[in-house]
């Protein structure tokens, strides 16, 4: 069974890359060399490896939140906005109290990021639970609102004073005090303790969902809202809670980007993690442990494709094309893993059809 899964996934990957190769050829480049970089780049050097994990970290954190909310029956498309709110809140708190000692400030900043992201997420949760506002609508809208709010803050009251002095006006905050910087795990890389935090939280979320009464209820609300209500579970409360937790985790992702990667809040701080994390979470089968390899693979895919573009200088658009094909092929191949019997059914149906024709 395991062997089969591996084989199917491999076939899907090969299929996707084969089609992608056609487009690389179309762009008059060498697909073999391109793929060599794409597939080995993220793993073959310390640079590739650490950068992969730099992408993994926010995907994992945000994805964990998405798992919680999806498991509770709330389709959270709002990761992107929650990340931004978390990032700006943590940067804001860090900048507001630059003189506090690290032991005090650091947890405070983490808390601020999580809390702000959580509250932002909870807006959609409460709207759904209390006023029956569809969460897909509200989270898509809240993403846009968060993006503008974020911009308003980093170009407004939180802007780096130097940018004002020099009149350059780059929308970014000043560097946060280095006492709250997350330690870099490998010198010369951007991989920070944020990654460890994410892994620890994955395990924590696993325990929360699977081994606590709160997790039990969150899952019950998602899997059987009617039964949950009948059993006395406060369904609206847990819906809102799930979105709070989801937002808090996404907010932490934003916080890690500030404290671990950039050391300030700047424009476009989230590289589409809110959406990619949905893919990672679903590929990880909405399991808090399953998402760890899923987000690593996804991080490697993002980075590898970028490295490929640099290596053979093809239009950046090909990166998206190949990523799109890989996602489509892999998700479509799932059926051959989950329901191998279907294959036989199609074959027999087909042969029967063609038999009738002849």
């Amino acid at each position, binding site marked *: 069974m395991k062997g089969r899964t591996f084989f199917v996934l491999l076939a899907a990957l090969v299929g996707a890359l084969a089609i992608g190769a056609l487009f690389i050829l179309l762009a008059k480049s060498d697909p073999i060399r391109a793929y060599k970089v794409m597939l080995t780049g993220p793993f073959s050097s310390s640079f590739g490896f650490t950068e992969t994990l730099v992408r993994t970290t926010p995907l994992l954190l945000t994805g964990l939140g998405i798992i919680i909310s999806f498991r509770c029956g709330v389709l959270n498309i709002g990761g992107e906005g929650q990340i931004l709110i978390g990032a700006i809140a943590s940067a804001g708190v860090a900048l507001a109290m630059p003189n506090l000692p690290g032991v005090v400030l650091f947890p405070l900043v983490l808390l601020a990021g999580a809390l702000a992201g959580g509250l932002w997420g909870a807006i959609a949760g409460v709207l759904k639970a209390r006023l029956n506002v569809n969460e897909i609508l509200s989270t898509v809208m809240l993403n846009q609102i968060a993006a503008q709010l974020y911009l308003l803050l980093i170009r407004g009251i939180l802007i780096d004073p130097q940018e004002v002095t020099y009149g350059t006006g780059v929308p970014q905050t000043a560097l946060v005090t280095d006492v709250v910087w997350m330690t870099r795990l490998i010198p010369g890389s951007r991989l920070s303790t944020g990654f460890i935090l994410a892994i620890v939280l994955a395990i924590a979320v696993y325990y929360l969902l699977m*081994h*606590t*009464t709160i997790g039990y209820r969150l899952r019950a609300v998602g899997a059987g809202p009617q039964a*949950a*209500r*009948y059993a*006395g579970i406060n369904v609206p409360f847990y819906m809102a809670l799930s979105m709070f937790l989801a937002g808090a985790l996404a907010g932490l992702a934003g916080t890690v980007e500030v404290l671990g990667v950039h050391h300030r809040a700047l424009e476009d701080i989230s590289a589409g993690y809110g959406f990619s994390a949905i893919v990672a979470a679903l590929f990880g089968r909405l399991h808090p442990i399953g998402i760890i390899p899923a987000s690593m693979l996804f991080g490697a895919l993002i980075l590898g494709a970028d490295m490929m573009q640099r290596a053979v200088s093809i239009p950046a658009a090909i990166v998206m094309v190949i990523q799109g094909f890989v996602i489509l092929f892999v998700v479509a191949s799932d059926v051959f893993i989950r329901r191998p019997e279907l294959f036989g059914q199609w074959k*027999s149906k087909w042969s029967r059809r063609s038999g009738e024709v002849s």
Partner: protein
Amino acid sequence: MSARIQKLEMRGIVKRFPGVLSNDHVNIEVSAGEVLALLGENGAGKTTLMNILYGLYQADAGEILINGEPVQIDSPRMAIDCGIGMVHQHFMLVPTLTVSENVALGLPSEKGALLDLEPVSRRIVEIGATYGVSVNPDAYVWQLSVGEQQRVEIIKALYRGADLLVMDEPTAVLTPQEAQDLIVLLRTMVAQGRSVIIISHKLHEVMAVSDRVVVLRDGKKAGEVATGDTNPEELARMMVGRDARPFSREARQFDGDCVLCVEELCVNNNMGTPALRGISLGVHPGEILGIAGVSGNGQKEFAEAISGLRTVESGKVLLSGQEITHCTPKQIIDKGLGFIPEDRLHVGTIPSFQIWENLLLKDHAEKPFARGVLLSEKTIRAHSEKLVADYGIKTPDLETQTGKLSGGNIQRLILAREITRQPKVLVAAYPTRGLDIGAAEYVHEMLVQASREGMGVILISEELDEVQKLSDRIAVFFDGRIMQVLPVAQADEKTLGLLMAGLTPDNQATAG
């Protein structure tokens, strides 16, 4: 497609699902003018066999022959073209469409691509009048009671005028009178040269309607007899492999305080119109109060109102003397109300949850099962294993998804959960619907057991003999009101039938 079905045969049908052999070389045949009954316990493979006939499943082996010719039925479309119609065990209705839209679905329209519901509605009314299965063609399906929905399913099949009609437990949610009408209807149909395959757990119906009976057990054919040559006891033995246990219970008289009192209760239904119009009722500790009535007369809303799932418009509900009218479900559960809901799969349990998880749906946060917010898995596991053993829940292990269990086993799980909690009052809504004889017997025993332990039991059911057999007193619901509450001794079939139709025997007398 072809000529009318004179004879249909299924030969050597094998169907495997992961882990189960649902049909194991089953042969059946049915001829024009004949009613074949398929019998068997829950999970014996009856539905599977019929789904194969209707093209929903493909058999792993075996063949289907119509008038001696082998046919390939690999979609419902093909089955329909062959002249086969089917009433499915689980409703195949679209709640957001009206009755006539549900019936018109997939049918060609006289106006080409344009929908023409006018003639459809007319035919529905006609069919209703002819066969006694009337329902308002303009009503939305979500507004209908389950009994009415079942009628729509039957109308759908009749509308298409199949040569061979398959009915999978069509009477499970019908009232006795409706079931009787259906039997008459089926007999008329076969008299016209059609054939019928019917699946039912109600042996008296099988005796009344069928010409021949095929019994399935564990996917295999366990026997086949002409109905004239057998009797219910023998059929039960063929199905279960043992004699049915005779069952009787002495009705008792109770006085003293009621453990649950309902006073002038008014409640609205989903559409916001009154469903209960001032109900007053009480049940004593140790008493079984039967609630009879055609479904859709407020029973569902009654059960939901007292368990806190539905807002009470006016009136009062008291549990052990404490008012619970506006309490949350959680508070009511904690005060001692147990509830076996009508929709056992989706309200009674969470289908995707494992068995142990569903067994603790209400108690997962209570003392021995949780320490703080942590679940104590060892305790839970031991407790669940005990319940599975005590209540005879058939499952490979505690991790099996509850939705994969048969209806009977799901019901056992719910009973196990509700009864072990030792509530003061247990409300059971249609607890044996769709269960096979063995499973139904078990449920009955458990309800009686619960009443012996001092619980007040409210049993909501349309099965008159079930209500009569178990209850101490019977309340009859009609149109959101209680027609009468009478001791079981006075509740003969005729009286109950009249009350359920909204007539008091006195009225009847004066009228007659």
